[in-house]
């Protein structure tokens, strides 16, 4: 297996390390960069737990190789809250709506919603809910996730709750 030197920006900081070509982005973020908030639920693209934002788009870290993210701007769930601990509006909405139980699916849910409600994105309620159908949560029955998604869709861009 060929080793590669991979560099990318992770949560605003430059990261450089070596990995084999076969290493997925999710394994790279967890193992090389220590972003253990990136969760791996299926490794075949169905559950959504591994979702991270790569160059502004929500992608499944398990379906992308680390080498493909060379030079990319990557945001993980660790990179959303403000330095003083203030939650990102998506995190706050999920918190307020009891949208998690075990929290294993949560980082993926957070990242998809964050990508789709970022300034400039105009996802409406339908689109947010459709995107949520790509995330499997075994615990909650999705009640809080749905409430949070609706709340986020209702708040004008940039003034999330």
């Amino acid at each position: 297996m060929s080793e590669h030197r991979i560099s990318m920006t992770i949560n605003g900081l430059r990261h450089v390390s070596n990995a084999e070509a076969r290493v997925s982005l999710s394994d790279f973020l967890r193992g090389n960069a220590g972003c253990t908030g990136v969760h791996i639920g299926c490794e075949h693209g169905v559950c959504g737990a591994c979702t991270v934002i790569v160059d502004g788009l929500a992608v499944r870290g398990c379906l992308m190789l680390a080498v493909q993210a060379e030079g990319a701007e990557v945001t993980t769930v660790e990179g959303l809250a403000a330095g003083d601990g203030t939650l990102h509006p998506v995190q706050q909405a999920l918190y307020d709506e009891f949208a998690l139980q075990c929290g294993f699916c949560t980082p993926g849910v957070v990242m998809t919603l964050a990508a789709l409600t970022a300034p400039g994105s105009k996802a409406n309620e339908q689109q947010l809910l459709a995107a949520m159908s790509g995330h499997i949560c075994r615990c909650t029955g999705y009640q809080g996730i749905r409430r949070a998604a609706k709340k986020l869709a209702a708040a004008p861009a940039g003034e999330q709750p």
Partner: protein
Amino acid sequence: MNAPGVGTGRYIGQRVRRKEDPRLLTGRGQFVDDIVVPGMLHAAFTRSPIARGRIVSIDTAIARDVPGVHAVYTQADLAHFKVDMINFYLVSPAVETTPLANGRVAYVGEPVALVIADSRHIAEDAASLVEVQYADETPVVSIAQARSGAPVHPATTSNISAQMGEEEPDEELEALLRDAPHLITHQVVHQRISQSPMETRGVLAVRDGAEELTLYITCQSPHLVARWVSLALGLRQTAIRVIAKDVGGGFGLKNHPWKEEVSVILAVLAFGRPLKWIEDRYENLIGANQSREAEMVLRTAFDAEGRVLASHGDYSCNNGAYPQLEECNIAVHMFLWAAYKMPRYGFLTRGWYTNTVGLAAYRGPWAMESLIRETALDVAARRIGIDPIEIRRRNLVRLQDQPTLSCMSIPIEDITPAECLEQLVQYFDVAAFRKEQAAARKAGRYLGLGIATYIEPTGAAGSIVTMTGELAQVRIEPTGRVTATMSTHSQGHGTATTMAQIIADRLGVPYEDVTVFEGDSSRGGFSPGAAGSRQGVVAGGAAIKASELLADKVRLLAGHLLETSPDLVRIENGMAHVAGKPELSRSLRSIAEIAYGEPDRLPPGLEPGLEAQYRYQPPPMTLASAANACVVEVDAETGMVKILRWISAEDCGTAINPAVVEGQIAGGLAQAIGMVLLEEMTFDAAGNPTAATYKDYLLPAISDIPDFEFVHCSTPSKSVGGMRGVGEGGAIIGAPTLVNAIADALAPFGEIPLRLPLTPTRLLSLIEGRDLAAKVEHPQPEEASAATAAADTPATVPAPVDQPVPAARAPEPAAPSGPQIDGDWKMVLSTPVGPQAMVGHFETDGTALSGYLKSEQGSMGFTGIVEGNRLKFDLKVDKPMKITLKYDITIEGARLTGKVKMGIFGTAKLVGERG
């Protein structure tokens, strides 16, 4: 002070936000795969690609040569560790169960070898290079095949892993069924389910010094894992510490370790370096213990007005090869009619071994009872021509009928399913729906309403060896803030939140000031954690009692310091106040500083510090109740089911946090919806699992789950705090509610054959009157015959197809002359909690028999009679309930077989040999 009803308070009953959430929302959870320790290596398994066969040879040489590989272990390498793979009741399995395959494989995915390597990638590469040669044998896959196929375990004589109840028809009961105005024969075929917690199984084992072992493991109780590992591995001299801070769902799969986790622990004991194994999803779907897969036929007699007269249940479940519990699910029968005025019930219940992965628990393990009863009641209502709500009203035990005994002698007290049903129909306008339904039908649209009611035993403590009380240790720190160490464990349950609410409420401090620690077996005391909807009830009671003890101490000390009576001291918002004297108010911090740091100022005899602990033992049984309603539309063109509304009216007593309660119910309901419409763990004829990814095993997504509406009935229970428990209810009541709605929608087409999941294809079979399901979906011929036998015909044993013939057994050598009875016999009794080993000692004197039975629980003497080679005697036992066990034993040579009549539990099998 501790009146049972608590209702709401400053924090109890409030929707406060969860303490767990900020860390989980920001990626700072600590799941097992997040833990890295120095020197850590990684494990991967070589697994069996066949369902049944002999291992001819294993060659690990090539795998060992892969750079980065440290060791490759097979069972032969680990056999010197004597492992007893005990079940949840801490009882040994009936068949030899080893961590890695021991000479034979019995299911696809069975771990055969374990590779230790520098990285997970290398370990997986090498695992695929372990060369194993197998001599294939024809597997036994389904229950039908198990009935007549060769034993899965060569040391056994049949595939029955456990059996209770009566094989011989009870003539009186049969007459009641036969002569009744209405007899409804109802069959449910329940598919196999993957519990599918989003976090798979995983363990990191670390040997800290010679006598210490630390396990980071996904589990449902670190205390139970520590106890299990200590007993199963015989590590009595080892200090075992189990840590599980965050766990990504359990649902019954993670009650205790099984083959893979044990293999990893043994590998660490053998190799020394820390070792991590994280199951991938493919392994989880094929190799992790699964659940359900059962068939049941319920025959129920009704009088002309729809009142139940008598009933008989015949239940079978596919236990797989190495179940975590060899069981026949006695709880199905115990609770089947417990909430109904059923005069008489008989049953036969069996578990079967097959060449599939073994079963473990899943939320509401006995849920078949509600599924088959509630769906049978609706079939009966349609047949008899009465309303489904009315048939329940006529049969449910109401509050005014209690206390009473169920037909299975269970004390029924304090249940409210009938009352939940009335609240439900007050909330939901049934008449308006029926109008809408009639109008829709005219337009060719099929709407249906499903109603179901149920009760659930919760808060178990004391009846089962591992189901104990809970311990709360609460202290006010010298800072004035409160720390609690609980025996609870959360895999999403939010116990750090609900327990903090209780403590804050009962202690009189702000919720923000309370921190709850759990998830570490070295802290707090034993409890089985999340199992049987018990933590809210039992740990809630413990938190209340410990907080009250501590509050009493604060009042005593404050009274002393302020020179007033402790009775006049009130603790509120972290301050101690004296009635009418605001100038005397003190912060808890100032009182705590004195309690810890100035012992001279304490009243004589008062222990310094502000700490209290309490282990709460709840009443023997607490029961939760519910009634649910759901409205569906079934598309007659496509067979697709759309859920339009769902209302849950539950009585979980005091709801500590209604948002957490609703979350538990919603999660359970979603799992039930998955069970009814989507999920199915399938196998082909060779025993290969054919749902090995989430593209084949369909879990419900947000688009499959409606908004749930909640009606909280909240009748406080008799346990301290009034909680009733809420974990499993949704998963139990959801399935019959949805099935009834679909059956109601499709009633114009006839009764739906109840084979889960109700896929569009299966529903179209009914709608179009053609057996589409048989052709499209069932690779195994006998399944098709089961499908057509559904609904109204009694269960027939389908003709076995392509079955291996049981190997002929050599006849027993005849006893030399007359039976040799006297002396010791090693015997195993199949009890509802698994096989129970004991030694029987018999002494005969003509036709008089005396002796004793000895087991780990102690020894009991008896006298009885001898008739030739038959021995008969009675034993009275108190646990789990008072019953007389009637032994009837036949001795042939060095073998002993027999039956034990266990009162309402029916008959259990006994086997034995010369000891």
